[in-house]
C-alpha cells in the first residue's frame, strides 16, 4: 500500500514544482519552494507563530527568532554552519529523547529532507515571505516553442510549462463540443440546436468571439455565476437550527444576479456586499447587497443565549470574508494563534471588532422593505394606495364615530359570540384598548357596510405584496467592545482589542477609522496580495475543474502551491488592470487555446497528469448540481426563463415528517412555470435541503463553501433515472422528439441525441438508440396502461393524436439520454 502512495506523492511534487525563471546554481535551495513546506510539515506545530503552543522557546517560521540563542545556550540555526546548528543535530539524532520531531509524532525526516535543510543553512539560511502574502508581480509571458499556438498570454504560460515537460498540447476541440462547453460554462445551460446551427454555419474568424459576447450578455449568465456565490454566501431561505423557520432574503439573491449581469466591477461588488450600507448616500440596492453577511443562521429555540449566537454570527462573517476574499483559514486563529501562518489570535479579534458593530442580534431584524427587481415605482404607488385604503377603513371603523354606534345599536346580539356581546355591554369609555381592537376587527369582518372598504383595502394590500417584499440587511451601530475570546469561547473574555488588519498583509493608513467600509476598501486595495489571486483562481476553478491553486480555500503555507504561479499572478494583475471587469477576464480565459483544447486523453497523458493540472487537454468534469438539473429541463423544453422572485417549490416526494417542534417539512409543488424554474430559485431549507442537489454534491450552506467535492455515486444514478423531475424531463424530451424529429425512427433518435448532447450520433450510437426504441415500443405495446403512465406521469396528458406507446418508448429513450455520462459532464 505505501508504495503507490509515495509514487503519487512523488508524481505530484514533480508536477507542481516549477523551475525558477532565472537560472540559479543547480544545488541552490529555494526557501519558499524547498524549505518552508518542510518546516510547515514537521516543525511549525510546536515552533511556529502560536506562542501558546510553542515548545522550548524556539520559533522557526521567521529568521530573526530562529537565529536567537536558545535557553540551552545553543542556537537552532547558525547561518552557513550546519554543523553548529542544533536543528540539524536534533533532526538526525539517534537518541529518541533528543530526536525532532519527537518519535511520538509519526515521521522522521527523510535523508533528502535533512540534506535540504543542511544545504539551506550552509547557503545562509535565508528566509522569504510566503508567496501568498507578497503582492503579485506581473511577468512578461514567456516565449514558447510554437508561437502559432497561443491565442493570448494565458497560452504562453501554459505552453511554456508544457514545453518544459516535453508534452504537446491537444488539438482544438470540434465546434459542437466547444459551443456546448462554453455555453454551459458561461450560462449553466446547453446551447439550443438553433444556436448550434448558427455557429456551425458561421465561418467568419470572429464567430466564436461573438458567441462569447452574446453568452456574457444573457441573463442566464448571472444565474449561473450567482449559484457559485450562493455557496460562498451560505445562502438559505431558512434560519437554520432546530425549527429552521423560513427566512425572506431572496431579494439579496436577486440583487446578486443583477449585479453579476450588470458586470459590477469586483471591487465595487465587494464594497457593496460587505459595506453597502456605509457607502456615502447608500442606495436601496447597495443596502440590499449587505444581505451577503445576513445569511448567517439564527437559533430561535426557547432559552437560547442570544449573545452566544450573535457571537457565532460575527465569527462566521469574519471567517467567511477571509475565506472568500483572502483564501485563508483565518478561522484557525479564533481559538489560538495560527499554527502555520502568521495570524495571531489578537489579529483575529481585531478583524472581529470590525464586524462587531451591527444591530442584528440572533434575529432577522433589521430588515428593509423593498420592491421586487425593477418594481420600485409600482411599490411606491401601491403602498400609497394601501395607505389610503387603510385610512378609509380606519375612519369607518372607529368605534367613536356615529356609524359604528349605529351598528352597535342595530346589531342582532343573539347572533354574536358571547365575547363580543360582553364588550358591547360595556360603554365605549369603559372598554380597554384590547377590547376595542377586538370589536373593530369583528366589525370589519362582519359588517356589510364595511365590506366594500375592507375589500378595497385587501385588494390594495395584495397588489402591493405582488411587488414588495422584505430582506435582511446590515445596519451599523456604535461598536461593541471586543475582547479576545480565550480558546474561542465567547464567555471567556481576554484583553480588549481595537479594530485592525493582519500585519502580514497590506496596511491601512493609520488615520483611517477602521469600519466595515474601510475594511472592504482594504481588501480591494491593489496592494492586497490575495484578493485578486483568490478571485481569478475561483473563476479558473469553475472553468477547468481545479484552480491554479487547488486548495481554493487555503493559499497559505498549508495550501497547495500554484501549478502556474506566474500565470496566477499575471491573471491577478490583469484583473486589476481591467478594472476588476469579471466578464472581460472570463472572456480572456475562454478565448484561450488552452480552453479550446479537446478533452480527449491518451493513456500516457492520463498516467502522467491525471488531474489535468498541466492543461495539455481541455477540461472534462461532471457538471454542478444546478446545471445537471437545469440542463435536463432545458433539453426537455420545460425550463422556465422567468428571472427573480420568491423561492419556488419544484416536485419533491412527500417526507411525511414535521420539523422538530415545527411545521411539516413537505411543500406543495409550485404551479405553472414556477414548477420548472432554474435550480437556484428552489427554496433552500438548511435542515432539509432539496434532495437531488445534495446528492450531486451541493453543500447544505450552513457555512461558506469554496470548493465542491465531486463524487460519483449510485444515489446520483437513482436521481437522474427516477426522480419525478427527471422522469418529467424525459417525457418532455420524448414529446419534443416526436414533435420535432421528423417521421422516421432514425431521424427522431438523431434529433433527441442532438438535443441532449449538442452533436450528431455516430452510426454505432444511433443503432443502439434505434434498437432501444424498437424494443421498448414492442414491450410497451403489450401493456398500453403502463405506456400511458410512463408517457404522462407527472407531465400530464398527451396532445391528441399522439400514440401513448410511441410517447412512452421515446420517454425511455429520453431517460437514457439524460443519464449518459456525456450528458452529465462538460467535455
Amino acid at each position, binding site marked *: 500500500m505505501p508504495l503507490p502512495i509515495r509514487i503519487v506523492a512523488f508524481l505530484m511534487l514533480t508536477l507542481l514544482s516549477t523551475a525558477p525563471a532565472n537560472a540559479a546554481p543547480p544545488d541552490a535551495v529555494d526557501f519558499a519552494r524547498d524549505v518552508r513546506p518542510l518546516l510547515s510539515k514537521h516543525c511549525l506545530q510546536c515552533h511556529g507563530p502560536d506562542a501558546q503552543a510553542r515548545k522550548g522557546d524556539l520559533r522557526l517560521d521567521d529568521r530573526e527568532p530562529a537565529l536567537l540563542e536558545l535557553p540551552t545556550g545553543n542556537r537552532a540555526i547558525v547561518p552557513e554552519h550546519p554543523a553548529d546548528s542544533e536543528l540539524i543535530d536534533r533532526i538526525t539524532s539517534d537518541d529518541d529523547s533528543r530526536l525532532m520531531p519527537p518519535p511520538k509524532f509519526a515521521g522522521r525526516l527523510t535523508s533528502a529532507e535533512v540534506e535540504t535543510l543542511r544545504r539551506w543553512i550552509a547557503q545562509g539560511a535565508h528566509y522569504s515571505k510566503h508567496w501568498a502574502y507578497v503582492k503579485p508581480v506581473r511577468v512578461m509571458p514567456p516565449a514558447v516553442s510554437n508561437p502559432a499556438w497561443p491565442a493570448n498570454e494565458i497560452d504562453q504560460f501554459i505552453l511554456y510549462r508544457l514545453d518544459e515537460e516535453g508534452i504537446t498540447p491537444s488539438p482544438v476541440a470540434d465546434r459542437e463540443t466547444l459551443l456546448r462547453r462554453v455555453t454551459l460554462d458561461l450560462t449553466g445551460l446547453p446551447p439550443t440546436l438553433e444556436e448550434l446551427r448558427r455557429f456551425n454555419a458561421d465561418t467568419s474568424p470572429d464567430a466564436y468571439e461573438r458567441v462569447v459576447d452574446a453568452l456574457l450578455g444573457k441573463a442566464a449568465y448571472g444565474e449561473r455565476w450567482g449559484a457559485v456565490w450562493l455557496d460562498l454566501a451560505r445562502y438559505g431561505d431558512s434560519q437554520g437550527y*432546530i425549527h429552521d423557520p423560513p427566512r425572506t432574503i431572496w431579494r439579496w439573491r436577486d440583487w446578486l444576479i443583477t449585479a453579476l449581469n450588470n458586470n459590477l466591477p469586483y471591487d465595487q461588488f465587494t464594497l457593496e456586499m460587505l459595506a453597502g450600507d456605509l457607502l456615502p448616500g447608500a442606495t436601496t440596492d447597495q443596502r440590499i447587497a449587505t444581505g451577503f453577511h445576513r445569511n448567517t443562521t439564527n437559533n430561535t429555540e426557547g432559552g437560547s443565549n442570544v449573545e452566544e449566537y450573535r457571537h457565532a454570527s460575527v465569527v462566521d462573517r469574519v471567517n467567511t470574508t477571509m475565506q472568500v476574499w483572502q483564501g485563508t483559514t483565518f478561522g484557525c486563529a479564533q481559538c489560538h494563534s495560527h499554527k502555520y501562518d502568521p495570524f495571531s489570535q489578537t489579529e483575529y479579534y481585531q478583524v472581529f471588532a470590525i464586524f462587531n458593530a451591527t444591530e442584528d442580534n440572533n434575529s432577522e431584524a433589521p430588515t428593509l422593505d423593498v420592491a421586487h427587481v425593477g418594481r420600485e415605482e409600482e411599490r411606491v404607488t401601491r403602498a400609497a394606495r394601501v395607505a389610503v385604503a387603510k385610512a378609509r377603513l380606519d375612519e369607518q371603523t372607529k368605534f367613536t364615530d356615529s356609524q359604528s354606534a349605529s351598528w352597535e345599536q342595530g346589531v342582532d346580539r343573539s347572533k354574536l359570540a358571547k365575547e363580543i356581546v360582553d364588550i358591547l355591554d360595556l360603554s365605549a369609555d369603559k372598554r380597554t384598548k384590547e377590547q376595542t381592537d377586538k370589536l373593530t376587527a369583528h366589525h370589519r369582518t362582519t359588517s356589510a357596510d364595511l365590506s366594500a372598504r375592507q375589500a378595497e383595502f385587501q385588494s390594495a394590500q395584495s397588489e402591493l405584496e405582488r411587488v414588495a417584499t422584505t430582506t435582511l440587511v446590515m445596519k451599523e451601530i456604535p461598536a461593541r467592545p471586543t475582547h479576545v475570546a480565550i480558546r474561542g469561547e465567547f464567555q471567556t473574555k481576554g484583553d480588549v482589542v481595537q479594530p485592525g488588519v493582519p500585519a502580514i498583509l497590506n496596511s491601512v493608513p493609520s488615520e483611517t477609522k477602521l469600519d466595515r467600509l474601510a475594511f472592504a476598501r482594504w481588501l480591494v486595495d491593489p496592494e492586497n496580495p490575495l484578493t485578486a489571486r483568490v478571485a481569478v483562481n475561483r473563476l479558473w476553478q469553475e472553468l477547468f475543474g481545479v484552480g491554479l491553486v487547488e486548495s481554493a480555500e487555503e493559499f497559505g503555507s498549508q495550501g497547495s502551491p500554484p501549478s502556474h504561479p506566474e500565470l496566477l499572478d499575471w491573471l491577478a494583475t490583469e484583473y486589476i488592470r481591467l478594472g476588476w471587469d469579471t466578464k472581460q477576464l472570463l472572456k480572456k480565459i475562454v478565448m484561450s487555446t488552452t480552453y479550446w483544447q479537446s478533452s480527449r486523453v491518451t493513456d500516457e497523458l492520463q498516467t502522467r497528469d491525471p*488531474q489535468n493540472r498541466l492543461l495539455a487537454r481541455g477540461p472534462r468534469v461532471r457538471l454542478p448540481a444546478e446545471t445537471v438539473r437545469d440542463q435536463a429541463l432545458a433539453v426537455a423544453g420545460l425550463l422556465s426563463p422567468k428571472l427573480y422572485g420568491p423561492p419556488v417549490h419544484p416536485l419533491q416526494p412527500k417526507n411525511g415528517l414535521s420539523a422538530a417542534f415545527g411545521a411539516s417539512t413537505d411543500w406543495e409543488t409550485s404551479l405553472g412555470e414556477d414548477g420548472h424554474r432554474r435550480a437556484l430559485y428552489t427554496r433552500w431549507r*438548511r435542515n432539509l435541503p432539496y434532495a437531488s442537489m445534495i446528492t450531486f454534491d451541493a453543500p447544505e450552506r450552513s457555512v461558506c463553501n469554496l470548493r465542491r467535492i465531486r463524487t460519483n455515486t449510485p444515489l446520483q*444514478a437513482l436521481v437522474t433515472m427516477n426522480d419525478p423531475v427527471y422522469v418529467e424531463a424525459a417525457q418532455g424530451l420524448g414529446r419534443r422528439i416526436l414533435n420535432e424529429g421528423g417521421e422516421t425512427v432514425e431521424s427522431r433518435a438523431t434529433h433527441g441525441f442532438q438535443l441532449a448532447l449538442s452533436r450528431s450520433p455516430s452510426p454505432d450510437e444511433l443503432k443502439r438508440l434505434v434498437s432501444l426504441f424498437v424494443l421498448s415500443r414492442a*414491450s410497451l405495446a403489450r401493456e398500453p396502461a403502463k405506456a400511458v403512465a410512463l408517457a404522462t406521469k407527472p407531465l400530464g396528458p398527451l396532445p391528441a393524436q399522439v400514440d401513448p406507446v410511441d410517447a412512452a418508448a421515446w420517454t425511455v429513450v429520453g431517460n437514457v439520454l439524460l443519464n449518459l455520462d456525456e450528458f452529465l459532464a462538460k467535455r
Partner: protein
Amino acid sequence: MFKANSLNHLAQVTRRHFLQDGSLGLGGLALASLLNDGANAGPVAEVPFAPRQPHATAKAKNVIFLSMSGGPSHLDLFDYKPELVKRTGEECPKSLTDGKPFAFTSGTPKLLGTPQKFQQFGNSGAWVSAAMPKVAEIADDLTFIKSLSTDQFNHGPAELLLLTGIPRTAGRPSIGSWVTYGLGSENRDLPGFIVFVSGGALPSSGKAGWGSGFLPSVYQGVQCRTGGDPVLYLSDPEGMDRALRRLSLDVINDLNRIQGAELGNPETATRIAQYEMAFRMQTAVPELMDISNEPLHLLEDYGAQPGAASFANNCLLARRLVEKGVRFVQLSDWGWDFHGTQAKEDIRENLVERCKLMDRPVAALIRDLKQRGLLDETLVVWMGEFGRTPFREGRTAGGAHLGRDHHPLSNTMFMAGGGLKPGMTYGATDELGFNVTENPVHVHDVQATILHLLGLDHLRLTYRFQGRDYRLTDVFGKVIEGIL
C-alpha cells in the same frame, strides 16, 4: 491494490493527506475507493463502499445508534434517587442552580422525585423503572453510564454536539459518516450508513444529524423512508418494468463505453459501476425493507407490523441491515421532551405509555442480535441529547402535569454488545441526581469510545477542510477505559 492513475480524482481532495504522515493511512485509503474515478474500473470502482482496515483491532463491526430525540428523563427511567423522592417539593438548593442556565426555568425551582417505581434487575442489580419493563429483563446485557454530561441545554445544539461533535450547524460530518468514511461498508448493494426516523418529526438536529458535512457526499446517511420509496427515487418510473430498466441500463452502459473509448476518460468506467450498484439497490433495498417474511413470534417480540411506520419496525430493520453488513444504522425517535406543558408530556402515566413504543422493540432488538450471534460484533447505543432536571420545570411548576426541564449536567445512557463489559453500571451522580460525582463522561468521550470499539482512533480519524484537520471529537474526547 491501487494504481497511481486511479487516484486522479481523489488527489484533488486529499493530496495533503498523502503528504502528511499523521492521517495518511485512513484519509487516503478511505477516499481512494470511494472517490474512485480511476482508469482501472477494477474491483475498487465496482465497490464504492469497499471495506477498509481500521487503525487497530476492532471489537465491533457495526453500530446501531438509537437516538432518543428530545432528551428522555433519565431520573424516571434509570437513575434512581430515593433522596430526591424524599425531598420532593422542597426548594432546589441554590448552590446547585446558581449561575447555571436552564431552558425554561429561572428562580428557585422545586425538587421532584420520580413518580415511577424502581427495582433492581438481573445479576448486575441494575436499577430500572417500571416504565421500562422489557429493557429491565435484559439488564445483564447492558452497560449503563450514569455520569454522562453535555455542554448544551437546548435540543438543537445538544443533539448537534452529540451527532456531529460541535453544537452548531457548521457543516460538520455526522458520526455515521465519520464511521463509513473510516471503515467503508461490507455490503456492495447498499449504502454504508442508513437512517430511520420515527415519532412523526425530524430530530432537532435536522438532516445535519446524518449529513456528511465537509466529507464527500457519498458518506451521508441515506434516510430510509417509511412511506413511499424506502430510499428516495428507488422505484422506476410508473410504467417502466424491470426488464425495461435493464434494457435502458444496458444501452446507457453501451453508449458510455463507446464514449469512454473515444475520449479515454476513466470516470466513465466509474459511472457504469455506479449505475450497476443503483440497479442492484433497487432490488436489494425493498427486499430488505419487507419484514413480512419474518416469523410471527419475532414480529410480536418487537411489536412490529409489516407495512407500519414505527420505531418497532425500524428496530427490526436495523437488525436486518447489520446482518447484511451495513456499517452504521441510526434510528432517530422523536418525542422525549417531557416538560409537563401538556398531558402527553407528563412523567407519570404518559411516560409509561410513550415508553411502550420504545422499551419493547429495544429489548427485542438486543435479544435478537444476541440470539443470532450478532451482538458481539454490533454495538447498540441508546441515548438522548441531554438528561432532565431533578426539579419541576419552571413554567409548569403550578400546573397539572409533572415535567422536567432540560439538564445538561447529568444523564444516563446505555450500550450493549460491541465488546463492552455487559451487566455493569459506570459512573454516578449525587443524591439528587444533579451533578456527576464519579467517573464523569462527556458526549465527546462517548464518541471517542464508539470509534475505539470500531478500531478507529478518534485522534487519527481526521479530514482536512479549510486548511485544518478536523475530527469528530473536535479537540476533546477520551476513550472510556472503564467499560471496555
